[in-house]
């Protein structure tokens, strides 16, 4: 799907969702393999109450970042913000979909700051992360 740009969308509009299947090997690369890690040591994860290792919660902010770079372009890389809460663990092998919906557009230093509600859902439709992300509108789009 072609990325939607900031100026083409209005408050209330949704961005194209971004879906990620999270493999253990990707978690290993993200977190770094080590023993006694709930992310990369299956036995340790079980001891800590998880049936399989967890994806690092921070990975979800990377998905939001990808969505925001596609949407806001340069104005996210320089001037972007993310503020999220991680409300449900994400397990290795799960599929996450990142969503965004435009919440507001406000003037800031001669530019417009576009703020989106953002959230991630797992394959069962359960929210795993909720919050906001924003960027400054620019003419340069990814």
């Amino acid at each position, binding site marked *: 799907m072609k990325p939607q740009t900031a100026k083409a969308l209005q408050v209330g509009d949704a961005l194209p969702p971004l879906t*990620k299947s999270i493999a253990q090997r*990707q*978690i290993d*690369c*993200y*977190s770094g393999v080590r023993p*006694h890690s*709930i*992310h990369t040591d299956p036995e*340790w994860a079980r*001891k*800590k*109450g*998880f049936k399989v290792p*967890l*994806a*690092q*919660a*921070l*990975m979800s*902010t*990377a*998905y939001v*970042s*990808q969505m925001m*770079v*596609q949407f806001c*372009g*340069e104005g*996210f*890389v*320089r*001037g*972007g*913000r*993310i*503020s*999220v*809460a*991680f*409300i*449900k*663990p*994400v397990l290795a092998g799960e599929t996450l979909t990142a969503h965004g919906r435009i919440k507001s557009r406000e003037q800031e230093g001669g530019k417009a700051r576009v703020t989106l509600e953002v959230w991630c859902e797992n394959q069962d439709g359960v929210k*795993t*992360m909720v919050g906001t992300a924003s960027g400054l509108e620019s003419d*340069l789009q*990814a």
Partner: protein
Amino acid sequence: MVEFKTISYEAVTVGEEFMSDDFLIKPEDVETFAYAVDDHHPWYFKESPFGGTIAHPVLLGNQALLMRHSRYIVPAGLHAKMQFEFVEPLRVGMRVRSHGKVIDKYERRGRHYMVTQFETREEDTGTVLTRGQFTQMIFPESGVHLETTNRQGAAGR
């Protein structure tokens, strides 16, 4: 010489400061991150509007998040909240370091949390690249995670 102790609610103090090791952003770091999150945007590998390539804005999140490991043994960590502000683009070849300060700790529903403010700068120029704050659960040393009570936000490292 750093004397490491296992992290606990009692051991962590508000006002306590952390500092990461310095880190050189290498091409392989960008490539590994791109694979890990499946994001191969051309700005990271070919050309960006900033001139040359840049790195993923959230590439250094773990440098900040793991600062407490420079002082404590952390048997497991759950990450409850994250705030980022992206000030300047990250680039391969930058040597970067994060500084942090514990600004709060609290108990909620029987769980302990610590809140850390951080700033990541380029070492050579002192330029601020990223700043923000994060909330981490202080996991009980011998405890297990009770998923059914996970309502306040806590989901990995």
